[in-house]
């Protein structure tokens, strides 16, 4: 009986702490809500792929060029919000507000994109752990 209890305890601990990708598409697993970012740059590549669209933005600063990968919602989610393949042509200047990937690096979960004409696009997701930061809500 004691041995069975021990085995069950070990199994529970293993289940609790093992595995890397059960939540591999969630905000909480990948991005840090305590690392908000705002970058300005030019769209150089857009991946309209599932489960997330990715917008690649070239940022020029004093240290050189950085290519940031910005994660958005599923393409169809963005399409339903009126964001189409024509909305972000290559070379478009944008400002991106979002949250950086855990551990740093040039990747982030995008929340809001501001176009040159001032229009704002909500590109974020709303899964577990995604911040309720007002992005995407009508003002």
């Amino acid at each position, binding site marked *: 009986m004691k041995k069975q209890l021990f085995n069950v305890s070990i199994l529970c601990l293993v*289940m*609790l*702490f*093992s*595995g*890397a*990708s*059960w*939540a*591999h*598409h*969630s905000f*909480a*697993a*990948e991005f840090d809500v305590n690392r908000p970012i705002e970058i300005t740059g030019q769209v*150089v*590549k*857009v*991946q*309209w*792929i*599932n*489960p997330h669209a990715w917008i690649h933005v070239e940022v020029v600063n004093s240290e050189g060029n950085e290519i940031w990968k910005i994660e958005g919602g*599923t*393409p*169809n*989610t963005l399409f339903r919000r009126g964001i189409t*393949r024509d909305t972000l*042509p*290559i*070379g478009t200047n944008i400002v991106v507000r979002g949250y950086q990937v*855990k551990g740093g690096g040039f990747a982030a979960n995008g929340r809001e994109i501001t176009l040159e004409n001032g229009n704002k696009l909500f590109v974020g997701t709303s*899964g*577990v*752990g995604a911040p309720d930061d007002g992005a995407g809500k009508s003002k």
Partner: protein
Amino acid sequence: MVRYTKKYINSMTVLVVCLSWFLAACDQKQTTALYSSQINTQQTMNWVLDPHADLIWDSSGFVVTAQGVQNLAPSTDEEWDAVRNAAASIVEAGNLLIMPHHAQGRDAWIGHSRGLQFTGMELLKAAENRDAQALFDLGGQLYINCQSCHDQYLDLAAQERLN
């Protein structure tokens, strides 16, 4: 006419209840003995469902660069067959997740699993019809199936811990 005493009726009631419980336990033991429950839910997600979902997601969409637009849709029979196989595996993953050791009697869990089966069946049709647009749209639906279940059953602490 036979008259039963209260004591007799009570004894028979207890006997019937015990017998029913015993038979149900035997039936359950016989059913569970037919399959292995060694692969836990997390492993089923990581090893069975995820690889097939990834294949579905990697098999549609567009990549836009200064050089032009790359269409990721399958272009050969072999690529479409791989999508078909992944779709069938997603249907079967939905079946697996309904097994008692995964579902644990949770109705909503079973509902999410049936949603997975449905999307898998639609993906199967898309593969058989060589319908790239449907494959793309259903890829989004598949993510919604996954995310809605994660939102309900995978809490924030667990998701952060898994990073």
